[in-house]
């Protein structure tokens, strides 16, 4: 709704748009207290927001300017209400969200700010909820969001999603923001839960909007969407009943969401058109091998290794190198894995990553070097980002006996 109202009020009135949504929300809840929640609460909220928008437009007509593209329509009482009604129609709403998504991914904002802004404006997350998801303080996130909103409000207008050149230029940033958002939900460091499925859901909701637009449905967007489907399909198996992490080898694959996996497959087919092989294509392929394997032992690790080779050629990073080394250990044995880990470039960047130490511990354990293994797992415990990770690593220490 903020996206739609910003489209009507203009990007410079972003704060006003947020206030109207807030008021609509509070009013609706006051009434629902007494009358009960209606069958279609979001339709109700939209209607309330739309009416409040009309009030604001009429009341503030002389005091403010609104969206420059809509000035003439908003000035006349004949066209005011129909213009607003049209902006609240389903196609326009999706376009507005697309526009807002692209506007949030301004190159003048760092990546974390882009993601925080998307969560705040498009997904309605509060500062506390975002701080929680990104293991940051309330103050830091608040500052980041305030600054980003100011920057956004100062731009002359919302991003034009119909201009093909600009769109293509900014698309990678949007993809990356959604990728980071999904990753935070899948691998996150939040203190409350090792998995934040709401973040995964939101990123999937937003990429669906991207896929619906002609300019957005590129092979790389399809590959990213497929990657999200495959990983989301595996989410139900990642945690046990107490919310603790289960290692890949021990996961009950019957818990995988088969229909999501199927959906991913269909989208991946669309990604196979054209000659572009993006990092998302390769990651989706890796995720597909995992999702379709019956068990860890039966996984085609050789294919996974060659896919990681490809990924290292496209987007090298210490974490990708680590995952590649782990796959090599699966294919060739723990000693080869350890050699590969020790050969990682820029390994210092992994020093604070708990799963780096856990991987070393795991491979030392398989090589029957329990003392070394215990040392590595202990290091991992010290770097654990939440109680679930801590429990997981402590259990591995227990296995070193």
């Amino acid at each position, binding site marked *: 709704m903020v996206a739609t109202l910003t489209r009507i009020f203009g990007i410079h009135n972003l704060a006003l748009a947020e206030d109207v949504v*807030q008021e609509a*929300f*509070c009013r609706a*809840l*006051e*009434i*629902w*207290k*007494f009358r*009960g*929640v209606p069958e279609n609460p979001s339709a109700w909220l939209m209607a309330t927001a739309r009416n409040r928008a009309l009030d604001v437009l009429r009341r503030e007509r002389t005091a403010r300017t609104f969206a420059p593209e809509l000035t003439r329509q908003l000035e006349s009482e004949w066209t005011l209400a129909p213009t607003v009604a049209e902006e609240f129609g389903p196609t326009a709403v999706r376009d507005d969200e697309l526009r807002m998504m692209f506007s949030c991914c301004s190159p003048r904002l760092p990546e974390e700010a882009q993601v925080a802004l998307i969560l705040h404006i498009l997904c*309605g997350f*509060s500062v*506390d*909820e975002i701080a929680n998801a990104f293991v940051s303080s309330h103050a830091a996130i608040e500052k980041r969001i305030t600054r980003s909103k100011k920057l956004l409000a100062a731009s002359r207008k919302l991003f034009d999603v119909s201009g093909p050149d600009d769109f293509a230029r900014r698309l990678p940033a949007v993809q990356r923001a959604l990728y980071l958002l999904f990753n935070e939900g899948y691998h996150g460091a939040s203190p409350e839960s090792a998995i934040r499925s709401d973040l995964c859901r939101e990123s999937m909701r937003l990429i669906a909007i991207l896929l619906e637009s002609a300019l957005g449905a590129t092979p790389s967007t399809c590959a990213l969407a497929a990657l999200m489907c495959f990983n989301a399909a595996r989410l139900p198996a990642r945690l046990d009943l107490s919310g603790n992490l289960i290692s890949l080898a021990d996961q009950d694959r019957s818990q995988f969401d088969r229909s999501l996996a199927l959906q991913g497959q269909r989208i991946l087919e669309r990604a196979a058109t054209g000659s572009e092989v993006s990092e998302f294509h390769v990651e989706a392929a890796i995720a597909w091998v995992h999702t379709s394997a019956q068990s860890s032992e039966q996984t085609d690790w050789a294919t996974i290794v060659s896919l990681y080779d490809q990924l290292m050629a496209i987007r090298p990073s210490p974490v990708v190198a680590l995952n590649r080394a782990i796959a090599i250990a699966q294919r060739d044995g723990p000693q080869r894995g350890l050699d590969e880990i020790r050969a990682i470039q820029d390994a210092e960047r992994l020093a604070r990553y708990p799963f780096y130490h856990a991987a070393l511990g795991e491979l030392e354990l398989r090589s029957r070097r329990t003392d070394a293994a215990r040392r590595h797992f202990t290091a991992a415990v010290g770097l654990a980002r939440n109680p679930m990770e801590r429990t997981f690593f402590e259990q591995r220490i227990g296995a070193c006996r």
Partner: protein
Amino acid sequence: MSEFVFLYRGGETGRSPERYQQMMQKWMAWFKELGEKGHVKDIGQPLERDGKLVQGTAKKVTDGPFAEAKDVIGGYSLIVAKDLSEAAELSKGCPIFEVDGQVEVRPVMKMNM
């Protein structure tokens, strides 16, 4: 059994949507409980903050009431209870107390035959 009016005053929930939603759910649960125990004649309505004040013999109309936030009546309910004590006791379940609000409990005048 007699009828009583609950007038809900004050109680600022603040701006957080999660908090608002929590409070709404608490109110609905409380209303439900009162209803199930047969105490609700009319669950009532929430009221807008702004209104008009019409006063005195001159029937002067002004915008208002501009009372302090804690005194503004936000809504009302019509309740059935044995007596004023029971009605007051029943009001204690209202979530408005969590946010420092108050409930004014007033008996509806009965016709004494």
